[in-house]
Each structure stands twice: as structure tokens, then as C-alpha cells.
């Protein structure tokens, strides 16, 4: 279990991390979201002791995280880093050795991992001969192959296509099953929504959202409405409490409501006109919440 308590860090006059606290129990996944510069990478660097906090505590299983625990860490930095001139195999073995594994332990696992991630190429290929996407997969394998207990992934999905993002998601979920604590940052809310148990949103270094993904969404009213009915667009937009109506390319109307109650009126009006294939009233998506939170107090 990773615990972060009242973490603070300033760079000059910039408050990079502002009283951030969270915990990631074993077998749980924490998603850290926020804009560029919100303090995500700084938080990771503080956890990993690359930077020293001004105040606050970082505990791993109840004790400060020290060199003893380095072998249990799997860290994927935001910008990738591999030795271009050595082979995939040598690269993976070197990083694993740095995590206290032996060549004997790691060598037999390499083929399986490369297959799981569908890395194109042989393990004797030099890193620089690989495509960017494949290099990134090698980087991910290097982060996970030693079965770390604390996994920190800084923007793991950036640069991966949906198929590969799915492979990575599966790998993260598998490690979660093994009881690892996972913490990752992302811009892609869809990934966050699918695999996170818990979510933290940072803005200007401070926590603005904190909770289970489902709970967070349901803190908000059901103000998002998708409707496919015989009601004309103009009629809907004239209803009081409707902020905005947009027709999507597939013909379905997307309606922003001032409050949940307005939905009931629209439902009644629509149902009066007959069969209504779609009426879906939901809280805002994470992405919408994200955009809302980013905008708050900013304009």
C-alpha cells in the first residue's frame, strides 16, 4: 500500500504540488488526471525521491520508501528512455538486473512478454531498429517484467494505438490481480474510466476531484441527454432549462440540461409523439467533468 500524505513542493514561486494526499492499496489502480503542468509528473518524481518534498510523507507499507524498496518498483517515465545500440534482450535484462533480478530469472520470460505485446522483431534486434511504437512496448515490458509491487506509469497510453492500449490495459489489470499497487497518469479519460478503481484530478498542483470513478460521475446531476425522437430540434431548444442542443452526425440530438428535472419534461413531450428509440440521461462523462474542472475559476 502506497500512502501519500500532505505532499507539498514549490519551485521558486510556483506551487507545483499543493497538499496532495492519497492512498493506493495493493490490488488497486489509481488514476491521476490533470492538464499539462498540473503536477502529475512532479508527484511521481516526489514519490520516487527524484525530488524532495518541502513537506509531507510518502509511505510504502507503512514505512518511508527507500533504496530497499527499489526492486519492487516499476516506473515508466513520461518520455521514454532506452539504450539505442543494444538489443531488446540485453536492454530488458539490464533493467531487470537493476531491479535485483538475475539473467536466469528474466531470460525465459522475454519471449512471452514480447508475444503478449506483439512486439515486431526478434529479441536480438537493436532498439534503434524498432519503430517508435515497438520501442514503447519494450519500455513497458521493461517496466513490468520483474513483477513490481508498486507500479508508476506516467502517461502510459500516449502514443499507443487502441489495439496496443488494450494490450497495456490487460497487462496492468493482470498485475493488479497479483496484488500490485498501480498508479498512472493519463489524458485519455476513456482508459481512466475503464480500469481505475480510484481517481485523483489535479489542477495547479491541488486535488480538485478525488473518489471512485462511479462516485465522481454521480456527484454530478444527470444533465447530459441523448435523444432520438419525433421531437424537432427547435422544439427542444425552446424548452426552459435547455442550455444547448446539438445534432450529431448520426442524427441523434445531444442536449445540455440546466438540471435533471428538465429531462422529465422532454421525456413526456417525446413519449407523447410515439416510439422513442433512444432516451439516455446521464451525468457528464469524465472528460466533460475534466473540462469543466479545468475551466472553473480560470476565466
Amino acid at each position, binding site marked *: 500500500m502506497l500512502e501519500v500524505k500532505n505532499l507539498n513542493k514549490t519551485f521558486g514561486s510556483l506551487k507545483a504540488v499543493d497538499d496532495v494526499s492519497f492512498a493506493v492499496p495493493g490490488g488497486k489502480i489509481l488514476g491521476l488526471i490533470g492538464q499539462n503542468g498540473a503536477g502529475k509528473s512532479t508527484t511521481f*518524481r516526489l514519490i*520516487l*525521491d*527524484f*525530488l*524532495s518534498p*518541502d513537506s509531507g510523507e510518502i509511505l510504502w507499507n507503512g514505512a518511508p520508501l527507500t*533504496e530497499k524498496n*527499489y*526492486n519492487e*518498483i516499476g*516506473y515508466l*517515465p513520461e*518520455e*521514454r*528512455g*532506452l*539504450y*539505442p*545500440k*543494444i538489443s531488446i534482450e540485453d536492454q530488458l535484462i*539490464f*533493467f531487470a*538486473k*537493476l*531491479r*535485483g533480478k*538475475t539473467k536466469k530469472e528474466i531470460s525465459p520470460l522475454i519471449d512471452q512478454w514480447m508475444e503478449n505485446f506483439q512486439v515486431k522483431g526478434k529479441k536480438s534486434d537493436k532498439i534503434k531498429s524498432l519503430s517508435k511504437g515497438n520501442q514503447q512496448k519494450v519500455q513497458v515490458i*521493461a*517496466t513490468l517484467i520483474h513483477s513490481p509491487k508498486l507500479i*508508476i506509469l506516467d502517461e502510459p497510453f500516449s502514443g499507443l494505438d487502441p489495439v496496443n492500449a488494450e494490450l497495456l490495459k490487460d497487462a496492468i489489470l493482470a498485475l493488479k490481480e497479483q496484488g500490485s499497487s498501480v498508479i498512472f497518469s493519463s489524458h485519455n479519460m476513456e482508459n481512466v474510466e475503464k480500469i481505475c478503481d480510484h481517481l485523483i484530478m489535479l489542477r495547479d498542483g491541488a486535488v480538485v476531484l478525488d473518489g471512485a470513478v462511479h462516485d465522481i460521475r454521480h456527484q454530478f446531476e444527470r444533465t447530459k441527454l441523448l435523444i432520438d425522437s419525433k421531437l424537432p430540434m427547435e422544439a427542444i431548444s425552446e424548452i426552459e432549462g435547455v442550455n444547448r442542443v446539438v445534432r450529431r452526425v448520426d442524427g441523434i440530438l445531444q442536449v445540455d440540461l440546466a438540471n435533471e428535472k428538465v429531462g422529465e419534461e422532454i421525456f413526456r413531450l417525446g413519449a407523447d409523439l410515439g416510439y422513442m428509440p433512444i432516451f439516455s440521461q446521464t451525468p457528464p462523462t469524465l472528460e466533460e467533468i475534466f473540462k469543466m474542472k479545468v475551466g472553473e475559476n480560470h476565466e
Partner: protein
Amino acid sequence: MNKFWVVALETYKRNVKSVTFLVMLLAPLLIIGIGALSGFIGSKMGEADEIAVVSDNEVIRQAFLEQSDLTIVEKFDTEPEAEQALKDDKIGGYLAIAIDEETQKLTGSYIGTSAMGTTDKMMTTQILSSIQMSFISQELGLTGDDLQKLLTPADLSEKTVKVEDGKITEAKGNQLAMMIVSMLVSVAMFMIITLYSQIVAQEVASEKGTRIMEIILSSTKASKHFYGKMMGILMVILTQLIAYVLAFVAAFPLVKNLDIVKDFLKVVPLKDLAKSLLGYNMLFLLLGVMIYTIAAAFSGSLVSKAEDASKAVVPVSYLSMAGYFLTIFLGMNSPNHLLFRISSFIPFLSSYTMPQRIASGGVKDTEVIISLVILAVSVVLLLKLSATLYKSTALVYSDAGMWKTLRQSIGNNHTNKAD
């Protein structure tokens, strides 16, 4: 395995396997090889022109023909004939020897389409002198013994002594051997530092450029990584040196019977060379290489891109150059100059200048030891300092200049936990 060794062996493996290393290993051998080859070609292929030798005095001409090993066409024995032969391109030139009957002085004049070779010229002068001498001695009525006496040069003996506590003691060791070894140490060190400072800085800076640093620093302590890296590089340097020792051992039986090598070994026996090399000089060489390597690594850690590494090591190269030129220009001529004496205690410079002072004598053992201790302590301090600053410099991601990075890293270091 200890992570220190994991890093050291990885660094070693990566560098030794590189093409650069192979080129570096072979370059000096190639240069020596090319030098030897061109010398060989020069001596064997330098087909001398055929020449004629003419003189009014047939005795002199015969004496010259006997002693000279120039390619001489004997049939042209008068000056007009020789001149004609030269015009007809039958010979490359001719040597006309004249004798002043009064003073018995010989004058040789060479007329040819190209200048005489240096060796030929020297030999010709020598032969003419000896002929002249025998003429003069005959005239003076000197016997062979008299001549021998006249020709025997005076003796000059040289003995370097040590003055210690007001007493004169005999200096140990072969002066010439020590001189040669000190030169060898200077050149070797200069070469190693020139070759490796770049590589070391590159090694450190390139990791920062690729952000491998963050992964490494989440696996092990920065200082451990830094020490491991230094160890790896030192192992690479030692590998190269050992390769040369082996090359020397392998080549020695082949060259030891060459005249030039024999003559050299007569004056400077191998034993004396080895004795001189394995003492203080070896320590100065090793510690010198270490201190420069660490300084180069530290410089490399101040830049964030591999391309900037060459700029970063410029100060280190200049320092090395300063030590080298001090030895060459000042040390050779006046090893007791105050400036030179002072420099032999200053780390970075002392590895160059102290061996030179030892070789020229006039330095007390205590001075050498003090200089060595200062150097060793500096190596340790610089290593510690670099490793400490490395933690923060390794993770400074800005494009800020070296000075700013250095200041930042020192600043950060106050707030960062001690490593």
C-alpha cells in the same frame, strides 16, 4: 549481483563492444605500424642514383672507392668523362675530390641532378675526413698509435645524486630509463585523456538525453550508478592498456634482435624501464587518469544532450593540455623552475609534472609522497562531490548553460535528501 557491478559491467560491455573502442585500440598500433613501414620502405626502396667519383689523385680515388658503399660507376674516372656521362643521363651525379697539396685538405664537390641523401652526405664527409687524416698523419710522420691517441675523445661521466638532510647520496635507478618512462607516462596519459574524456562525457550525457536516468534512479542510488559507471570506464581503459602490454610482449621477441632495439636496450635495460614504470610513475598515471575521467564525467553530467558533451569536456581537455605542455616545454629544460615545482603538487597537473621531476632528480621522496597523497585525496573528494551533485544534475532537464545547471544542482542539493 550488487547493482554497482551491474552498472560497471554493463558500461564496460557496451563500450568494449563498440566500434569506437576497436578503432581506438588499433589506432596507435596502426600509427606505429605505418611509421615503421614507411621507415622500412625509405631504407629499402630508396634506390640511390648511380654516381661517378673522380679525382686528380688516384690514391684518394681508390681509397674512397674502397670505403664507400655508394653505387659507383667506376669506368668514368675523369671529370670531363663524368660530366659527359651526367649530360647523357648515364649517371645521377659525380663527386669530384680535390686535394690542396699544401695543407693536405680534401675538398669534395658533388654535382648531381638531385641532392645527396643525408646519410650519404654524412658518410661521404666521414670517408673524406678519414682519408684526409691519414694523409696528414703520414706527412707529420705519426704512427698508427699516435693517431689512435689523437682520435680518442675525452671522457665525460655523469652522476646524479640526491641531497637529503645535507648529505649526498647516490640516486637510485637508471636516469635515462626514468626519463623515457616519464615521457611515456606523459604521452600515454595525454592520449588516454584526450581519447576518453569525450567518451566518458558522452556516456553520461547520452543517458540524460534519453531519460534512461529516471528508470535507473528508481532502481538504484545515483551515487552507486555514478561509481559503477566510473568503474566500468576505468575497466575499459585498463583493457586497452593491457592490450598494449600484451602486444608488446608478443612483439618483443620479434624485435629484440634488431640492431636499433639492441643498442637501445644496452643503454636502457628493460629491467630499469620496468622498475621505473612500476613505481611512483604507475601510481601517478593511474590516479591521473582517474581524476581526469571523473572530471570529464562530471562535466558530461552538466549538459543534457549528448551533442553538448564535447563542449562540456573542453575545460578538462585544456587542463590536460596545460599539464602536458608544462612538462614538454618547461619540465624538459628546467625541471627545477619554481612554477614547475609548484605544479607538481597540484592535482591534475602533478600527474604530468611529478614523474618528470622524479626522472630529472632533485626531488625528495617525501615530496613525491606528499604530492601523491594530495592527488589521491583529490580523487576521492572529486569522486564524492561528483556523485553527490550527480543526483541533482542527472535530473535537471533544462537547456540551461553549464554554469546555471551547476548552480542549480548545488542549490537543489541543499533541499534534497543526502544521498
